[in-house]
């Protein structure tokens, strides 16, 4: 059996996940299949046999891959199969509806010198939305066999695919990149003399895109010659002074756009679906900005601020806790617990129940819950990648690009985690600017919810808060972009289709995030309560509050606001909840409320965020950001107070 499989020609199926590779595999092989881990990995690979025109073939179904440059273990295995299994034919399965997104990988496979047959699958679905693919024209342009199919129930295209495999002849097609890039590729390829499965042109491209596994392989095969190859690659990357990874991807995209010219047509009346129109509107600045404002108004202001922080919190906080639970628990404690300190710890001003449980359950949870619902709806619709494209132009002015939308949007959930995600930004410069802006001007979900809820009841306050936040964000970002040195990478991303949010998806994500959030904040709120009670009983809290009092007076705030700022350093949401208490006790007028909200939002990041900042950016940068943010918060608060009093706005 072993010797038989070794003499069999191999057909390797590759392609993105969910394009129907496994259906093609099952259709071709029937029940003669085995599934086992690929040697040295835990990734499963299916193998089966089929017979075409009397000849036996072994068929391999590889894990999903998006590109020849792997990121995940699955992709690494899929590429290793291509490198090590010497295929007779590589069938690249793509989804007809996403031809434009998936064709760049076909190009990569062809330029690697692999024997490629392109199977355009799911044609039935594409035709249903009025799309027509000219298979013959694409075949002519690509110079490889192209088969259209729908391998679901009808097994459409199966016989054409078998014929293409039977009659397969290796194509010598090449696709030219820009002249300077071609010169670089040629220069480096010439230096390689080893024996490779993939051709040298393709290897050069992967070396220029800093593929470490390929670099190791080239090093093995070239021996002493590798030093020259490595030097040439490094010199080219240095000379170009641009992100070559991105440049090559864009070039490939350009070639694919050219190849697709005249290949895809839409039937009359079916040119663009409504989702396509909405998608375009969201990315066009003229329509995209108003749409963004509508999303913010309905999603955040009305739903999170009005319904979450208003209606639900009012009910839980006012009716359930204040009127029913608190008096009952306080009564129980006073009756059965004779010790003052224990009463304070359980039901005192900062008690575990009266502050910790109340903040976590009655104030924060409804707000983050409604925020997570809004977030999941927006996320499930595919809006966020479009928002990234929309803000790319503005973000460039502040030293970032559209890619930074991800950490910024995540920051509205939790700044600590978003600070970690700044790792995905390409340059150190971008990471520093994004970390600074996250620490300064991006409120976390609970903080924003509480603030929206508080300010929505005061006409003009919310507008003053928003203008201050956006203004500080843009101004500090713009100044940071001038000061922080480093390169400015371009932004490029594929846009997934827009769709109607699925209720089940929204529900799952919301419940999952709420569970995670509650499990995380609840113990922290308990710890914070214990610390505050200890501080109160020992007098340390009073001393700390006393230290803050002069600053509060400078901001025009009452002394009681000091506690909210101290809470805020434990957690942003904790501070916001403290502000909520001050407002409900009637201690803040509209100007004070606005000043406190702005200063508290800008104020130093919470302990967790600071620690992550230190871990990610080091002591020097994180301490600089810490002091800068603290100084800026109080300076903006002071200036805003003066401005509001002087103009009479909100008075």
């Amino acid at each position, binding site marked *: 059996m072993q010797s038989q499989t070794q003499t069999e020609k191999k057909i390797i199926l590759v392609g993105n996940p969910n394009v129907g590779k496994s259906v093609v595999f099952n259709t071709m092989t029937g029940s003669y299949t085995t599934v086992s881990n690929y040697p040295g990995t835990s990734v499963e690979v299916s193998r089966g046999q089929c017979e075409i025109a009397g000849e036996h073939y072994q068929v391999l179904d590889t894990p999903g891959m998006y590109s020849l440059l792997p990121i995940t273990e699955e992709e690494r295995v899929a590429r290793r199969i291509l490198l090590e299994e010497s295929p007779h034919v590589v069938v690249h399965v793509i989804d007809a509806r996403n031809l434009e997104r998936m064709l760049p990988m076909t190009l990569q496979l062809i330029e690697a010198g692999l024997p490629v047959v392109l199977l355009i699958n799911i044609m039935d679905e594409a035709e249903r939305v009025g799309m027509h693919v000219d298979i013959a024209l694409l075949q002519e342009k690509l110079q490889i066999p192209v088969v259209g199919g729908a391998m679901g129930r009808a097994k459409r295209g199966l016989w054409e695919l078998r014929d293409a495999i039977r009659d397969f002849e290796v194509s010598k097609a090449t696709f030219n990149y820009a002249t300077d890039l071609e010169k670089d590729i040629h220069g480096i390829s010439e230096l390689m003399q080893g024996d490779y499965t993939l051709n040298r042109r393709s290897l050069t491209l992967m070396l220029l895109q800093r593929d470490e596994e390929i670099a190791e392989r080239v090093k093995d095969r070239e021996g002493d010659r590798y030093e020259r190859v490595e030097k040439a690659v490094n010199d080219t990357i240095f000379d170009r002074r641009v992100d070559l990874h991105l440049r090559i991807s864009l070039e490939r995209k350009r070639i694919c756009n050219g190849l697709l010219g005249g290949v895809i047509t839409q039937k009359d009346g079916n040119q663009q679906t409504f989702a396509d129109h909405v998608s375009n509107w969201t990315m066009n600045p003229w329509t995209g900005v108003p749409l963004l404002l509508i999303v913010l108004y309905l999603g955040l202001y009305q739903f999170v601020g009005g319904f979450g922080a208003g209606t639900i919190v009012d009910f839980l906080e006012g009716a359930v806790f204040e009127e029913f639970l608190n008096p009952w628990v306080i009564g129980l404690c006073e009756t059965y617990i004779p010790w003052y300190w224990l009463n304070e710890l359980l039901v005192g001003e900062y008690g575990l129940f009266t502050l910790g449980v109340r903040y976590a359950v009655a104030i924060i949870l409804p707000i983050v819950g409604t925020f997570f619902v809004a977030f999941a709806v927006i*996320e499930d619709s595919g809006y966020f990648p479009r928002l990234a494209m929309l803000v790319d132009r503005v973000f460039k002015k502040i030293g970032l690009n559209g890619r930074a939308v*991800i950490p910024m949007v995540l920051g509205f959930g939790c700044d600590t985690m978003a600070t970690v995600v700044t790792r995905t930004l390409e340059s150190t410069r971008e990471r520093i600017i994004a970390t600074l802006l996250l620490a300064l001007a991006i409120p976390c979900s609970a903080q924003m919810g509480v603030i929206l809820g508080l300010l929505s009841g005061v006409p003009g306050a919310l507008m003053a808060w928003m203008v201050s936040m956006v203004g500080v964000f843009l101004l500090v970002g713009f100044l940071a972009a001038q000061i922080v040195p480093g390169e400015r990478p371009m932004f490029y991303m594929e846009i*997934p289709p827009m769709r109607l949010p699925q209720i089940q998806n929204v529900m*799952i994500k919301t419940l999952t995030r709420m569970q995670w959030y509650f499990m995380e904040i609840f113990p922290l709120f308990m710890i914070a309560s214990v610390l505050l009670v200890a501080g109160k009983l020992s007098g340390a809290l009073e001393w700390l509050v006393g230290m803050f009092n002069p600053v509060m007076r400078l901001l025009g705030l009452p002394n009681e606001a000091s506690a909210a700022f101290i809470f805020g350093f434990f957690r942003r949401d904790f501070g916001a909840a403290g502000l909520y208490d001050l407002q409900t006790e009637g201690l803040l007028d509209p100007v004070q409320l606005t000043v406190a909200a702005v200063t508290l939002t800008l104020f130093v990041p919470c302990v967790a965020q600071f620690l*992550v900042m230190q871990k990610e950016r080091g002591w020097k940068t994180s301490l600089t950001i810490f002091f800068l943010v603290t100084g800026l918060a109080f300076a903006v608060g002071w200036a805003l107070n003066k401005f509001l009093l002087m103009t009479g706005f909100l008075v």
Partner: protein
Amino acid sequence: MKCTFCEHELTPEMLREKGCGGCLGGCRKIHCPYCGQENPIVPELLEKFLKDDKHKA
């Protein structure tokens, strides 16, 4: 599951990726290696419940 931002497929293998360590009780999210988006890991119980529900329907 698919990444909720860029729609790249996320596999259980990615659960092995180290989290930032900032969350108590460990990381309950998969950070997409393609775009950095945090995707919530659905608790087993909820997933089981939804599967059963789907099966009944």
